[in-house]
């Protein structure tokens, strides 16, 4: 479970200080699905980075299962990312020289698994996103949708507690978008993950059971019945 209290993140833009997040309080329960929406530069991605332990707040606490990620030493924070948090990025962020299976394996490397086990788990993860047959392909040999599936397999292969997705459909066309969203929702349900997704897409936001809107660093959460 995430519990954020008074999270502030300040950037400097020249001599001017900009508040990307200004005293955000937020609770995300285990297995919740939260969609974050807001204008560009509103602080969506910054919030996601706080949740993922990729960045530290200027002030406030970001607790994951009672552990404050904001004050955790770098080595332990890296361990939390390696074991508990899966990331999906808008531009897939696959390693161009590695095959689909090897890209998925990169998420298992920090866990110290044996190479054979890694290969097996990666192949299973790719099969679960419908890419079992394309595991030897390089990213450049896959479509955008397929690349995002590889990225999703990479995020889930380590069986994390949390899945954080930053505009996962931002680079995809409409049909591919629906396909990816269907896949993500299916996996969320199947694995019982805590799923937090940033999106610009109103169609996706409308379907979210819980919608957080961020504007000028302020957050507003709307609860609604899932459609």
């Amino acid at each position, binding site marked *: 479970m995430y519990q954020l209290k008074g999270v502030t993140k300040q950037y400097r833009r020249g001599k001017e200080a900009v508040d990307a997040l200004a005293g955000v309080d937020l609770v995300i329960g285990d297995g919740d699905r939260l969609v974050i929406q807001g204008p560009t530069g509103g602080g969506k991605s910054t919030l996601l980075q706080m949740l993922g332990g990729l960045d530290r707040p200027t002030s406030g606490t970001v607790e994951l299962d009672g552990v404050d990620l904001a004050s955790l030493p770098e080595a332990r924070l890296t361990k939390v990312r390696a074991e508990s948090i899966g990331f999906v990025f808008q531009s897939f*962020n696959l390693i161009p020289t590695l095959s689909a299976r090897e890209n998925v394996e990169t998420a298992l490397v920090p866990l110290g698994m044996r190479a054979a086990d890694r290969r097996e788990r990666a192949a299973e993860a790719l099969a679960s996103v419908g890419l079992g047959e394309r595991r030897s392909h390089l990213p450049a040999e896959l479509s955008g949708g397929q690349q995002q599936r590889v990225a999703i397999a990479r995020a889930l292969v380590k069986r994390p507690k949390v899945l954080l997705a930053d505009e996962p459909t931002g680079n995809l066309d409409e049909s591919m978008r629906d396909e990816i969203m269907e896949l993500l929702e299916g996996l969320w349900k199947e694995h019982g993950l805590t799923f937090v997704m940033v999106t610009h897409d109103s169609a996706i936001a409308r379907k979210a059971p819980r919608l957080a809107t961020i504007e000028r660093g302020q957050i507003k959460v709307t609860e609604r019945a899932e459609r």
Partner: protein
Amino acid sequence: MFFTYLRRELRRRRKAALVVASGLALGIALVIVVSSVSSGMEQAQGKVLQSLYGLGTDMTVTKAAAPAEDGSGQTEGRPRFRFDATDGEDSDAGGKEQSSDRVMVQGFQTLSASTVSKVGGQSGVADAVGGLSLQVMKVNGRFERGAFEQAPGSAGGRAQPPGGGGGSDQQGGRVRGGGADFDVDSYSVYGTDVGKLDLGPLTSSKISKGRTFTGSEADAKVAVADASYAEEKKLSVGDTVTISGTKIKVVGIATPDSGDAAADLYLPLKRAQTLADSKNKITTVYVKAADSQRIDAVKSAIQKNVSGTTVTTSADLADTVSGSLSTASDLASSVGKWLSVAVLVAAFLVAGLLTSSAVSRRVREFGTLKALGWKSGRVTRQVIGEAVVNGLVGGVLGIAAGLGGAYAVTAISPTLTAELGSAGGQPGGGTGGGPGGGGPGGALRESASKALDISLTAPVSVTAIALAVGLAVTGGLVAGAFGALRASRLRPADALRRVE
């Protein structure tokens, strides 16, 4: 994963990798060529010194040079030739042919033969043998009688005494023609101890015809001629040469292993002493040290315990080598060394900057890996690993190019000239040349005119290859350090934010 990732990345960036590897290869190849050429220079200098000293000689002992005493000490040894100014009754055309030769000790500085045993008794001396370096000057020719021409109206007269010049006015007549025609020949002779032929200048030559001396020929009238001298004088085994009226039989022809021979003729030591009227005298003691690492200590011991001597080691003599060999050696050790260092530093910097730049282009990649839980150390190792492999590829290319360069130098074998010893004549105006018979006051002065042609080779040592591998790894590590520093400082949020 480490090696798979590494291999794929190097393949993807093969152009940049090739640039880095080529830069390192150039530096490493230069290091190999320069070090092998330097090594070849050392060998060439060794050959030059060997031709002077002979094989196995670590140092020579000679008499310390006496201070010049306003020239009086030198005139004592100056050769004098006396000729009879006869009228040449045996010839109508001119005076009879006259010949005279003088056998002189090289440098006019001799030691007692007992010095050999004194030197041989010093700590650290494995063996010592004495030798006598001589210079023979032979003057051969005749005086021509001038013809006196009676002036018209005066009485007849005799011709001017010989040597009177081409013609002079006399009262009542003049002398026309006449004069002197003399040829001066000079050659070097080395008296060698026939009981110890394994040490001394003769060891740097091989007997190509005939034989060398036997132990029973201590005072025999036999000689071994240098091949070049024999060719010049048309000498062959069985011929005789005359020195100071003594007929000496040539029993062998010696060809030097490299460069010039130490002497034109080699004689048994006692015979040489007799000819030079220097009984129990030697000019040089050739010393072989028991341990080549302790030559300086042996030198000090001899200088301390055998007074009035000068000890010259190979290292001392090497300092006096001049000519194109010396110039090339200086070039290899100074310009070559600094050029190699400059190219290596430039290659290291270029490799470092290119690696750092490659990391900059892979910010998103490394940021993603860090987001996935890769520790900074793992990312850093990946960057360094790629750079080290790059360095090793450069090392292999560099070693190949270096070996090629060294092979080319050896194949071309440029000829270098080495001049041994400082300029400066002998006391009393004697000639130079001859075997190394002394230290700074002796051998060097005697060898003032010794010039040798040496073919340069460039042998590649295992040390040079090991140095190249070390440089390759260092180059890789330096380049990797640049990139690794950048990669380790990368914060995942910044990395991902920068490319979004």
